[in-house]
């Protein structure tokens, strides 16, 4: 439902509980607004509260639990919630700003623009910090790949991410793609970006100094995306298409100009504060910056460059037109910002002035159309905070009854191997990533030597950042606490395998409707698991976003999907490790202990069609031990490759290590375990490494005094893949099937 109040420009316009309800506010919230203002709000003011107090902007249903997450370490320069994105000291005078954000609801309705503007939004969060983005990743989840609807959504989302990111000119260096029926109506589109800034040259989203001028820079304002934040804060249904005006339209060319201009403005030294206009547009940026700087603003809405005529105040205030920034400069520096924007051919208009006190006053043609206190609008100020009820769902105890003995071991394991290698969740995502420019910037080190995480040079230093996005939502559904801990542990494992040191995470918490106690139970469990894992791994949470209401009214919630974006640092580039086997004759070892476990594996879920089972086996202490061991092996130059055992199990790990250089393998399984569990089970904390013949002795010696189980599986071969003496396939055939499986379905 979209409300058209086009003719109602009158400040005195009367509002009621019913108006509030239509704007997505609760009755108690309406009462509270009246209390804050000491009067009944007019429609414009009520609209302002409705977007600022939406879940999307206020985190009102999640903040209580988010606050329990660890958020500090000596490296953290900007803690969660302090700025537009987290800021981590990477040493030598540089910092990395990074964040992940969802654009699920817009992408469900208009996949191309929804995904494109998601990419635009996350990059603006990075460069408003003063950081130049150097790497983008994305984490995508869709429904059944064979449905026409999923294919339409997938094509649109991938093209949207590609067209925006490619033109913006920052490489897309990695990501995830996962299919499950639970995402049929509501796909998940999470975008990650990381940028680099010199320490001390960062910008802040603040405003202070009465008399300082307030500018809007970038694109003109139109009617697109009005109530986008409120739209993101309700269930997705088949009727959501009626919310199409809530979806914004992106222009990467404007974004590129805005990036260059913003960085120049920040470096001018005359900047007070800067914030991008994402959710809730001018409303959100003016109120958050003012609240942070403990000042007010007078804003003249008629000065805002407009894309269309006859926009009324609430439309100008709530518009989510893309590629805009709100900038407060030092008084006297008006010409500086104008000159920079002229250079980049961008609109730059002074639309207001900083005032004493905390009031936001919005004027249209000299007439006051809304007056609200900034602090009462924002998270940490007057925005409501709720403790939601939660309850363990019935399926949880049901899942625990799973017993591997009830699953018959297939006779033809080669058929299982082929099934998994060509399964859309495991097969090569080449069809997707070929559409993304992964090499612009000439800093991507993981193109020609693939690794478990993306490795991107920080030019001007000897360092690289190592980044990944991870979440197996099937595990999280099976057991939110354990599953989310696994997501964090796997992200760290990937960074360690690529040669990095994990330092911090950002999270994108995609859940269903928080008012459903069983859904909220999943959220609480996931936060507990994340807290535990982040503390154990020493990776604090620097921020991110919460996306509730990923739930179709008719098909229940999506899998709880707390996507983890993790940042790692590689001090020296020669520490970089590939996942690819290097040479026939090298020995293959597995670090970490095998288990008789197939719970929640792709094998159990898709091959045997057993939909309910617990999360796979996971033990944090073993995880820490295996990661510590691999770090040391890499530093001591004892291994040729490292690749973690993840989706599809040990077999898929071996195959993925063999394919890049078209080598094979000859390995033996362990008779103490069921062969299907050994090959296809997804028990955690295992890493497959290869070792040159001359280094095996030193390798084994290095591991002897460690708390890590290791076992020699076999050797790297020239072409063929043998398991227990049986030829599974030649590598060129397997590689072809793996590479083209998605194309076969989509082309």
């Amino acid at each position, binding site marked *: 439902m979209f409300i058209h109040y086009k003719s109602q420009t009158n400040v005195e316009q009367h509002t009621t509980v019913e108006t509030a309800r239509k704007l997505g506010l609760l009755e108690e919230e309406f009462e509270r607004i009246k209390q804050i203002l000491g009067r009944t709000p007019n429609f414009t003011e009520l609209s302002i509260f409705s977007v600022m107090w939406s879940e999307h902007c206020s985190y009102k249903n999640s903040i209580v639990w988010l606050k329990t997450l660890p958020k500090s370490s000596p490296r953290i320069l900007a803690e969660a919630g302090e700025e537009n994105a987290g800021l981590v000291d990477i040493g030598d005078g540089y910092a990395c700003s990074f964040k992940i954000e969802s654009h699920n609801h817009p992408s469900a309705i208009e996949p191309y623009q929804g995904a494109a503007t998601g990419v635009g939004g996350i990059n603006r969060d990075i460069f408003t910090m003063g950081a130049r983005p150097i790497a983008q990743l994305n984490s995508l989840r869709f429904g059944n790949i064979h449905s026409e609807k999923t294919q339409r959504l997938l094509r649109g989302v991938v093209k949207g991410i590609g067209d925006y990111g*490619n033109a913006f000119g920052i490489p897309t260096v990695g990501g995830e793609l996962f299919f499950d029926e639970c995402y049929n109506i509501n796909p998940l589109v999470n975008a990650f970006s990381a940028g680099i800034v010199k320490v001390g040259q960062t910008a802040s989203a603040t405003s202070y100094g009465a008399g300082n001028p307030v500018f809007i820079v970038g694109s003109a304002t139109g009617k697109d995306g009005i109530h986008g934040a409120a739209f993101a804060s309700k269930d997705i249904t088949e009727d959501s298409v009626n919310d199409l005006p809530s979806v914004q339209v992106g222009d990467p060319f404007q974004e590129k*100009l805005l990036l260059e201009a913003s960085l120049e403005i920040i470096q001018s030294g005359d900047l007070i504060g800067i914030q991008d206009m994402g959710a809730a547009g001018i409303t959100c940026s003016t109120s958050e910056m003012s609240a942070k700087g403990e000042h007010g603003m007078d804003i003249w809405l008629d000065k805002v460059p407009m894309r269309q005529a006859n926009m009324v105040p609430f439309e100008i205030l709530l518009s989510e037109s893309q590629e805009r920034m709100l900038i407060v400069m030092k008084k006297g520096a008006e010409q500086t910002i104008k000159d920079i924007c002229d250079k980049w051919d961008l609109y730059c208009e002074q639309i207001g002035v900083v005032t004493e006190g905390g009031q936001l006053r919005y004027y249209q043609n000299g007439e006051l159309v809304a007056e609200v206190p900034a602090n009462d609008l924002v998270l940490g100020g007057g925005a409501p905070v709720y403790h939601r009820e939660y309850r363990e769902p019935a399926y949880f105890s049901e899942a625990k009854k799973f017993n591997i003995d009830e699953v018959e071991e297939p006779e033809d394991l080669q058929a299982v191997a082929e099934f998994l290698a060509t399964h859309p969740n495991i097969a090569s995502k080449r069809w997707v990533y070929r559409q993304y*420019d992964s090499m612009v910037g000439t800093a991507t080190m993981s193109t020609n030597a693939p690794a478990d995480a993306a490795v991107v040079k920080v030019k001007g230093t000897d360092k690289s950042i190592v980044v990944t996005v991870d979440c197996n939502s099937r595990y999280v559904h099976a057991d939110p606490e354990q599953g989310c801990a696994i997501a964090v542990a796997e992200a760290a494992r990937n960074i360690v395998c690529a040669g990095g040191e994990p330092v911090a995470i950002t999270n994108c918490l995609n859940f269903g409707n928080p008012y459903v106690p069983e859904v909220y139970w999943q959220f609480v469990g996931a936060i507990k698991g994340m807290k535990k894992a982040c503390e154990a791994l020493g990776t604090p949470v620097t921020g991110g976003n919460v996306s509730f209401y990923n739930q179709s009214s008719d098909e229940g919630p999506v899998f709880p999907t707390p996507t983890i974006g993790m940042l790692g640092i590689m001090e020296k580039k020669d520490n970089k490790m590939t996942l690819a086997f290097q040479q026939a004759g090298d020995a293959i070892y597995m670090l970490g202990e095998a288990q008789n476990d197939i719970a929640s594996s792709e094998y159990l879920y898709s091959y045997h069609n057993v939909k309910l089972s617990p999360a796979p086996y996971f033990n944090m202490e073993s995880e820490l031990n295996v990661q510590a061991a691999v770090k040391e092996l890499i530093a001591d130059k004892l291994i040729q490759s490292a690749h973690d055992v993840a989706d599809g199990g040990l077999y898929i790990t071996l195959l993925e290590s063999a394919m890049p250089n078209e080598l094979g393998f000859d390995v033996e399984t362990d008779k103490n375990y069921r062969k299907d569990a050994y090959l296809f089970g997804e028990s955690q904390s295992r890493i497959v490494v290869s070792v040159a013949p001359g280094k095996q002795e030193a390798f084994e010696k290095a591991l002897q005094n460690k708390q890590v189980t290791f076992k020699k599986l076999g050797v790297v071969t020239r072409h063929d893949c043998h398991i227990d003496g049986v030829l599974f396939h030649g590598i060129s055939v397997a590689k072809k099937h793996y590479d083209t499986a998605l194309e076969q379905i989509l082309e």
Partner: protein
Amino acid sequence: MKFGVVVFPGSNCDQDLVDAISIGMQQEVVKLWHKSHDLQGCDFILLPGGFSYGDYLRSGAIARISPIMQEVVQHANSGGYVMGICNGFQILTEAGLLPGALLRNVNQKFICDNVYIKPATTNLLPTRLLDLNKAYKIPVAHGEGRYHADTDTLKRLHDNDQIMFKYSSNAAETHELYNVNGSLLNIAGVSNEKKNVFGMMPHPERAVDPELGNTDGRAIFESIVELVNA
């Protein structure tokens, strides 16, 4: 020898080219702003990849009428060296400095990948030091890279030795199978008739830094640097 890299609004490979030339090749290089009329005494002008003017209207269509391009055209017409890479190639065809046009890829998608190209001649400045029988691994990243020209033009290109690179296998076979975007005759790069203006879709500047694991592009820059310096 002084290189100039033109920066249009929306260029995004300008810094990569500057890095390849200054750090990779140890040559003098400056950036040239699109609104300027000053080539700053550069001998060799490079038009970088990216999405100049947002690819509005058509790739390269607006860039060709920018102020700096008037000088670039004059520089080329008086025999000066000009080379366009990716979007730069598109701009040079739009400006009429190179024959043919770059159309949407045959699969209608943006393609980013490592591909192999082989030199079709060593009589052009950028291919002088290259091995005619070798395939060079050079990344592509474009949505509109399908080279097209009429039959007469193609014949002239062939007869006058203006075809610079062709898409190939890793063993330098120029079969249609290895034609990444549907270009006529597998053409990945060409020169003008006077052989002082060059254009190619693949990005040699992305294959210069040894830390990225691929240095096949160095030979192209070395060819340019060595001859001009000689």
